[in-house]
């Protein structure tokens, strides 16, 4: 199983490609040109997938084993059997092949050349090489693969661009499309760090405010999204039809609050408060982790099909400004 994920909730877009054994995060600064760069992003992420496939194939042929994770930079050359295998004598790294796991081939297990050089690889260098010689345009995921996209909260335009694009990809290739909100991703990250009990998560919003949600960890198994508060009937999206999975604990704990707009400050009830990709007074910074995303993308329930696709939608925490003004005027005509 392979997957591609895109989070365009902020101008610094985040992407991730992965398969059963690897994952690779990407970031792009996409001020005003996200929509123009979408296919380039897909190409970059697919290059990672292609590289892993190539490595796996050549590794099997060359007696190499696979890395469980891709280091960003290759550590210094080490003797066979200690970490990544380096070239004998500290020379140039071999270009093709892959050393095994956290440690190199046991006992100096070597590739075809028998000197420990042939199976050494720096995944980042291979990725770079493949980017320099792209394998051609197109979209190569197929049966058994998955797509994922961040549903927010965040930049509504960015979210809609990413969602629209990925929905179309999923529609054509009949792939499951996982809609993952930042709150759930953040909550799952906290869980892996052993955080339990009530927490508040904040995501940056306009004018120095924050989108916030109160949760109790751990979330229910399989939960992929925090229930949201959609403006029922105002833009045609009815909360009753929301794809977002509620998270009743079933154990007497309070269910998650609906996301709302609030201040960028600590929760008044004293519960630990975390800011998604930002920190503030009383708010600890929390960066949702690629490894958590990787696990979710591989193991989360991922219904496919037309109906499921239509349910993947941006997380609109508040109505549009025009709707708010209209409501104010009509609720208080003299206002």
């Amino acid at each position, binding site marked *: 199983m392979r997957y591609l994920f895109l989070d365009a909730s902020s101008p610094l877009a985040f992407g991730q490609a992965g398969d059963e054994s690897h994952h690779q995060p990407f970031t792009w600064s996409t001020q005003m040109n996200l929509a123009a760069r979408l296919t380039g992003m897909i190409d970059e992420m697919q290059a990672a997938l292609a590289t892993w496939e190539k490595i796996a194939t050549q590794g099997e042929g060359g007696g190499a084993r696979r890395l469980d994770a891709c280091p960003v930079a290759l550590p210094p050359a080490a003797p066979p059997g200690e970490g990544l295998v380096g070239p004998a004598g500290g020379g140039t790294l071999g270009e093709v092949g892959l050393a095994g796991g956290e440690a190199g081939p046991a006992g100096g297990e070597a590739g075809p050349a028998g000197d420990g050089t042939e199976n050494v690889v720096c995944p980042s260098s291979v990725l770079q090489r493949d980017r320099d010689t792209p394998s051609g*345009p197109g979209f190569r995921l197929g049966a058994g693969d998955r797509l994922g996209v961040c549903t927010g909260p965040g930049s509504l335009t960015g979210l809609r661009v990413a969602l629209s*694009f990925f929905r179309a990809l999923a529609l054509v290739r009949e792939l499951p499309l996982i809609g993952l909100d930042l709150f759930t991703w953040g909550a799952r990250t906290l869980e892996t760090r052993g955080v339990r009990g009530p927490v508040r998560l904040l995501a940056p919003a306009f004018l120095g405010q924050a989108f916030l949600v109160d949760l109790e960890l751990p979330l229910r198994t399989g939960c992929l999204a925090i229930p949201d508060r959609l403006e029922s009937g105002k833009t045609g999206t009815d909360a009753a039809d929301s794809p977002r999975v509620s998270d009743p604990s079933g154990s007497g704990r309070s269910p998650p609050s609906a996301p709302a707009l609030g201040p960028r400050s600590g929760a008044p009830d004293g519960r630990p408060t975390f800011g998604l990709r930002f920190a503030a007074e009383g708010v600890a910074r929390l960066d949702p982790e690629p490894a958590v995303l990787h696990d979710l993308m591989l193991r989360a329930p991922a219904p496919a099909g037309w109906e499921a696709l239509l349910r993947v939608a941006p997380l609109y925490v508040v109505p549009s400004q025009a709707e708010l003004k209209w409501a104010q005027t009509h609720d208080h005509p003299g206002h």
Partner: protein
Amino acid sequence: MITLGIESSCDDTSVALVEDGRRLRASLISSQIEVHRRFGGVVPEVAARKHYEAILPVLHEALAAAGLGLGDLGQIACTVGPGLLGPLLVGMSTAKGLALALDLPFIPVHHLEAHLGAAFLAREQEPAYPYVGLIVSGGHATLVLATGARQFTTLGRTADDAPGELLDKIARHLDLGYPGGPVIQKKGAGGDPARYPLPRPLAGRGYGFSFSGLKTAVLHLVRAEGDRLVLPDLCASLQAAVRDTLCGKLEAALAETGVARAVVAGGVAANAVLRAGLEALAARRGFELLVPPIALCTDNAAMVAAQGFHTAALTGLDPLRANACADWAMGDPFPVL
């Protein structure tokens, strides 16, 4: 070849399938008029949300109506400008995703150029050049000389309000409803177009338009007349002023360029008073007049698909790098990064 067209530049989500650029296989439009009525105009963020909700169901229905599947498509054409950026991005991103996944060409289409092309689609014929084109809608009043595919010289455009915008604003001021064009046409039926002598802005002064002065004149008239105002006569007089202004500019452009063909398109071209005026002008001056049927005057994806078919060879390198652009000029290369 089947071209899939997608249009989402304003408040209509539309998907159409056109064969060989001329034969309309299906065209569906999901209108947001009811959603925006309470605001008295289109709200871009609300429009973008509705486009996102509607676009895949409309695509599904259009394919079903045409009896086609995604595998039957030959290329994907989509409006990328000008228009409202948020709504444009929904359509364009969807279109790009379809093109990439289906491994089909993506063709960025200019909304106004597509409006003009609708006149030829209606006749199931190839676009013919040269012609003088007049695009009149809620966002545009533009007069161009077209000499070839994607070859335009802009003769004039509005300096302020577009005629559709003028009608919307006056209808809102008179509490007649939204959109203004159809309701003013309805209210003006049987009215006396000569009762209220409204100005013909910039008459005889080049090809530029300006409708804000006309709007002000109407508002002053309404205030001055008070209870004496005869609404049907006002609506008829207003439409006559718009008709005379547009027909006058078109007539002058045809005379100066020596071109004997005119294309008038856009939502305001659906107005019956304007259409009658154009036909009378064409009969008097002896030029060929092409005005799309009303269904193809307002925003629709059929015109986008047809335009995409006729301009596919002109897109240049890697159209998937195209960006949406609120003010893309006619004839210019598609906007990129």
